């Protein structure tokens, strides 16, 4: 019983607790270690005495005390005069007085983790570690890094934050624009990692809701910036489709074949209102256009309605003007195949920078699909193998295998 309660509380409230302690003590290491220590104490105490009625508040309180102890030890070591000790609550007090509200300092912590003085590669990992509470192992897998390499990156980033004097504050309006962009990009990466797992059963699917929450807070905080509500809309549109992304056999379902009846309508309605806010701010930036593409898809009500390919293609044309990169062009090619034909799309995909996309799974999957539909079965099969070799999630693997096995040289098919 105790272990289950601890796992749940640590997972759900971990980020909030670490953020609250980091904001109070202005030290990421102390916050992280204090929270780990509180979890260790809970693991020792709860199985015998039973979990407290508010496990998260218990963890917060104990972690605060651990942090305070550590601060005192450090001060003593540095031969500074220690602060007068705070009255230490007894274990009974901790259990009784556990209805304390944990202050939500996560936004502050995000701005620390995404400070421009922190290396770009470290920002998303640090946010996922400290704000979303992912384990080193989970983040390392998401970023295709070894545990050791990731730990080193995180350690370096935390040391930089401490030594350079990065403030634990939400920046003032003058710095908003630059700072916000760094935060939004980080959340985009974080959500993409959660979204990759279509079935939502992998180790990182659960924190999608965390990213949704953080985007809502940002959208409320910066009403004048269209990109914040646009990102809030985008992750909601994407998340709303989750129930339809996997079929009964556990295989991924491509967007155009998903049954819109299964999509989460209330979440789409929420996304629509965020998107309306972004549009009202006359936002025409990259993120606003990207959210429009999601909105076009989510406007579909049933499989009887034709997919919105021509709208989607027009939006991708706009997107290419905003940000011309191989990934945007690859996504555009998928729509292009439906509007202008497979041959035109395949031509476009073959012209993309192969070296840049070699390790990008959707590149091989899109190429394979277009080759298959052009009747080039053998090449299609090779492209599917290349996609499978990049370690897809289980749902995606099943879908790719099925498509690969359906490849027979010489059979032409214009619709999947």
């Amino acid at each position, binding site marked *: 019983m105790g272990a289950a309660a601890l796992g749940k509380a640590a997972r759900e409230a971990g980020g909030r607790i670490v953020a609250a302690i980091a904001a109070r003590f202005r030290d990421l290491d102390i916050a992280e270690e204090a929270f780990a220590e509180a979890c260790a104490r809970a693991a020792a105490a709860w199985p015998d005495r039973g979990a407290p009625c508010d496990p998260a508040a218990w963890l917060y309180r104990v972690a605060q005390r651990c942090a305070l102890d550590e601060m005192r030890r450090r001060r003593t070591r540095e031969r500074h005069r220690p602060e007068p000790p705070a009255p230490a609550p007894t274990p009974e007090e901790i259990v009784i007085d556990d209805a304390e509200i944990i202050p939500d300092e996560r936004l502050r912590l995000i701005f620390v983790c995404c*400070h421009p*003085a922190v290396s770009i590669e470290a920002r998303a990992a640090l946010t996922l570690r400290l704000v979303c509470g992912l384990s080193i192992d989970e983040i390392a897998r998401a970023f295709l890094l070894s545990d050791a390499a990731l730990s080193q990156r995180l350690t370096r980033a935390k040391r930089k934050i401490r*030594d*350079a*004097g*990065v*403030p634990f*504050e939400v*920046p003032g309006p003058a*710095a908003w624009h630059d700072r916000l962009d760094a935060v939004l990009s980080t959340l985009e990466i974080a959500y993409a990692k959660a979204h990759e797992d279509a079935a939502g059963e992998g180790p990182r699917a659960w924190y999608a809701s965390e990213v949704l929450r953080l985007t809502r807070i940002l959208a409320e905080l910066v009403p004048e910036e269209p990109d914040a509500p646009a990102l809030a809309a985008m992750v909601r549109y994407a998340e709303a489709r989750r129930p339809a992304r996997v079929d009964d056999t556990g295989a991924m379902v491509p967007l155009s074949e998903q049954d819109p009846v299964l999509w989460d309508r209330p979440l789409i309605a929420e996304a629509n209102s965020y998107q309306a806010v972004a549009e009202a701010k006359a936002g025409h930036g990259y993120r606003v256009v990207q959210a429009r593409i999601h909105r076009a898809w989510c406007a579909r009500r049933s499989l009887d309605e034709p997919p919105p390919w021509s709208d989607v293609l027009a939006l991708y044309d706009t997107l290419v003007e905003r940000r011309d990169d191989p990934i945007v062009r690859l996504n555009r090619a998928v729509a292009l195949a439906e509007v202008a034909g497979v041959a035109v799309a395949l031509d476009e995909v073959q012209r993309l920078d192969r070296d840049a996309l070699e390790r990008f799974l959707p590149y091989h999957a899109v190429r394979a699909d277009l080759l298959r539909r052009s009747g080039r079965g053998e090449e299609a099969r090779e492209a599917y193998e290349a996609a499978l070799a990049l370690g897809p999630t289980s749902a995606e693997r099943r879908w790719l295998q099925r498509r690969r096995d359906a490849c027979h040289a010489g059979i032409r098919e214009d619709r999947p």
Partner: protein
Amino acid sequence: MQYMLMIYEDERVYGPEKSGPALQEVAGKQRALRDELGAVWVGGGGLRAAASATTVRTANGSQTIHDGPFAETKEQLGGFHLIDVADLDEAIAIAKKVPLAEDGAIEIRPLLSG
């Protein structure tokens, strides 16, 4: 916290031996910044051209004296400000105001003693 703002520019923009009119103009702006900073400004100043540098290097316990800066670079350390502010964001805000003749970079480094 105390930070050192190190000003790196291609010193050729200031003419031979940093005596051109660009120097007078930028030096005036530097003084204005110093006045604006008031008590935040702890110290600083402009440096003569890198050609005036002398380097004492210690290696394997013995010391040698060289003509020139410790490293030849495209942009040279041309001056510095030492400031006392609350955090990095304040230091960045001041670094953005440091006048330059043309392109250049301001490196912000916290002092060990904080």
